[in-house]
């Protein structure tokens, strides 16, 4: 348990991560090993982290170094008290924190310590939330979600889980809504500039066309399922290889996927290294993102909110493919099989709800603005300061008007 950490432990980390870890080695040495391994796992990804994540790491280490030490001790003590098997703790965790955490997780389940671990995490999460609140300089965040593109309306009520939190609109003209939404994100990007602070994710082909023909602009970070097809296929190929090898099970597969790195041949769209790595993680860590576009959009929205903590975000759920045998979905033959419109609408509706929940986890959530629209219809729901909760509105207007009403 008392393994010491040396600078040489960081030699396999990428350059910026090595430097960051070395700069903070004194604090790192003072931490309970399990907690330290979690921090080191984050630090080892430093080169590919978004600015918000880097600020987060620095702020956490600053808090540990400068806060009342009795308080720090009481927050971290539950990590030190976890019942972890000695063979797991004997692993070279500072060198390979990701592998260690994988084994640790399995061990916590086996020793029935997983709840104690989550409790420790919750306690630390409260501290982290306060740190983020204090450091937060964001303005009112904006999140727009489109669901139901290409879907029949059906009879199921829409936005059911969100209605208690906002106002339901039944007569919104959605003509040009997507391009109006994109213009609004662009407007937000001009008003609140920042790297990776404004995002557009499309479950189909991107609706954004820059002057150079790409689907990105300098101000908006953009991802589309269609453009990322080469990365998706590469990951499916890796999954397929493991599945058909007859060697190892899900844990081996997880290790193989974790060790994949973004390279030029997995490049999708006009992206920098940080974005390429982010995209790869969406497909290697996101369960189901490789097979269903609706899952991809929901998971990507979650990861953007969690990691980049953006100022504005536009998600567009599209039709997902029909359910097929998992062997086919994860096989190398990726031919089209038709779409599931009814399922796609339900998936998008739930995805919108989860996006709102994830938005609520960010600092300044009370001031955030959230809109979800049925793209091929007239229904929308908005949650924003000043808008009544659990209300319905028959106001007639365009999508642009709706954005004005929540401004």
């Amino acid at each position, binding site marked *: 348990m008392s393994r010491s950490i040396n600078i040489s432990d960081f030699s396999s980390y990428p350059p910026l991560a090595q430097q960051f870890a070395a700069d903070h080695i004194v604090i790192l040495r003072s931490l309970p090993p399990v907690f330290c391994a979690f921090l080191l796992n984050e630090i080892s990804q430093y080169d590919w982290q978004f600015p918000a994540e880097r600020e987060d790491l620095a702020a956490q280490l600053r808090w540990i170094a400068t806060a009342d030490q009795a308080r720090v001790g009481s927050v971290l003590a539950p990590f030190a008290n976890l019942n972890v098997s000695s063979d797991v703790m004997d692993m070279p965790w500072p060198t390979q924190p990701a592998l260690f955490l994988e084994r640790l997780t*399995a061990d916590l*389940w*086996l*020793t*029935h*310590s*997983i*709840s*104690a671990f*989550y*409790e420790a*995490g919750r306690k630390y*999460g409260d501290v982290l939330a306060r740190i983020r609140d204090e450091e937060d300089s964001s303005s009112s965040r904006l999140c727009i979600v489109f669901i139901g593109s290409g879907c029949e309306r059906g009879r199921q009520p829409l936005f*059911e*889980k969100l209605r208690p939190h906002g106002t339901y609109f039944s007569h919104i003209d959605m003509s040009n809504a997507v391009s109006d939404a994109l213009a609004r994100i662009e407007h937000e990007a001009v008003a609140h500039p920042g790297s990776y602070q404004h995002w557009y994710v499309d479950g189909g082909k991107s609706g954004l066309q820059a002057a150079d023909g790409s689907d990105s602009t300098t101000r908006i970070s953009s991802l589309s399922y269609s453009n990322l097809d080469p990365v998706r296929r590469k990951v499916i190929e890796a*999954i397929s290889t*493991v*599945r*058909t090898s*007859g060697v*190892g*099970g*899900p*844990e*081996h*597969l997880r290790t193989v996927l974790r060790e994949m790195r973004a390279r030029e041949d997995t490049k999708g769209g006009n992206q920098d290294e940080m974005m390429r790595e982010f995209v790869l993680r969406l497909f290697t860590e*996101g*369960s*189901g*993102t490789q*097979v*269903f576009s*609706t*899952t991809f959009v*929901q*998971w990507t929205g*979650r990861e953007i909110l969690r990691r980049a903590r953006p100022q504005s975000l536009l998600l567009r759920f599209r039709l*997902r493919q029909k*359910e*097929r*045998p*998992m*062997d*086919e979905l*994860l096989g190398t033959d990726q031919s089209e099989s038709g779409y*599931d419109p*009814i*399922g*796609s609408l*339900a*998936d998008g*509706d*739930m*995805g919108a*709800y*989860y996006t709102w*929940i994830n938005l609520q*986890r960010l600092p300044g959530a009370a001031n955030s603005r959230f809109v979800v629209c049925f793209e091929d219809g007239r229904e929308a729901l908005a949650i924003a300061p000043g808008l009544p909760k659990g209300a319905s509105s028959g106001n007639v207007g365009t999508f642009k008007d709706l954005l004005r009403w929540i401004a």
Partner: protein
Amino acid sequence: MNGIALDGNLLRVATERSISRRRFLWDVARTSAATTMFGLSSFGQALHQQPPAKKLVVVTFGGGARDEETFAVEGQRYIPRMLGELIPQATFFTQVVNRGILGHYVANATLATGCYESFNNFAPIPPSHPTLFEYYRRDLRRNADDVWVIAPSNGFDRIGASGHPQYGSKLGATMVLPKQLLGGLAKGSSEPFDHLLRDSYEASSSIDVSQEHAVSLMELADRLKLPVDQFLKFASGVTSPDELSLYIAQHLMAQRAPSLLWITLHDIDVAHAGAYSLYTDAITRTDRICAELWRSIQENPEYKGKTAMFILPDFGRDSDFEPGGNGFQHHRTGDPLSRTTWMVALGAGIKENISVDRMVESVDLVPTIAKILGCNAAFASGRPVTEVL
């Protein structure tokens, strides 16, 4: 291992869920009283009790299901048959807590042994404690044809017998893995059965079926008295592996009428792919399968009036509000909601229209069934649930 501690948070959430399920059932009862769907004048009252059970059918969902998609108000649309047909005849346990490992194979092994099993969920190893099947066979001197397990995928193939030195495979259940059976029998067939041979998204990597417990497929088909052509014809017309399990169960009951039949359904676990609609579709399919099984029991003189059926998910799934999870998609956080579920018990010897709000545990199932069947679950750590005895 005794599972995780029963701390205040788990107790509080489990109790809240219990109250919410109870309240919902009251609402259903009130509604149905008006429409005579249940034909009840009051709810929560023991109106009828049948004689003790001679036969037992257990249905587990080896794909956790949450309240939100089952017994919560917003979940009722997904389980119309259980609500309309089974609950009015059942004792309903509103608070079943699983304090063990939340992986489907290991959790179902826990259900089958009455002990919190602790092994790698993805490893092809048997439970370490004796199973219900072994207790029953040894104490009542039953042969393997009287105890059957229908399990969903390769990962479950060892669930029929433990590695316990005093019990073990010689006393285990006869295992049927419908997908494996179909795969074997379909060789040479011109019909495509790939859609039924899939594995779940989570366990999409291949794990070899243990040879130690695998009866040859032709021998198994023979013991099942399964008409291969009919089976293949049926398989070509269905869309889910759980439908195959239902077919095998119905066939088995008609042909061999085993005294103890354990079925683990698995379609719900498609939730891991993140598509909410597929998850809720699977719940509705599972709901229908449970009702169809009950109907088959009622239509079979070998079973009618002398069979009890228990239905329960192995556990729940993550809460929408647990930051470490992604809602319905997984059961990775071990949060109280993912550990809290429900159980429906109905049939011979079980009171109708009763709701039990006190907490029971997953490990209580085996001692309860053992008591009903008259065998001694000597190594089980749970306690018999008196409300159904």
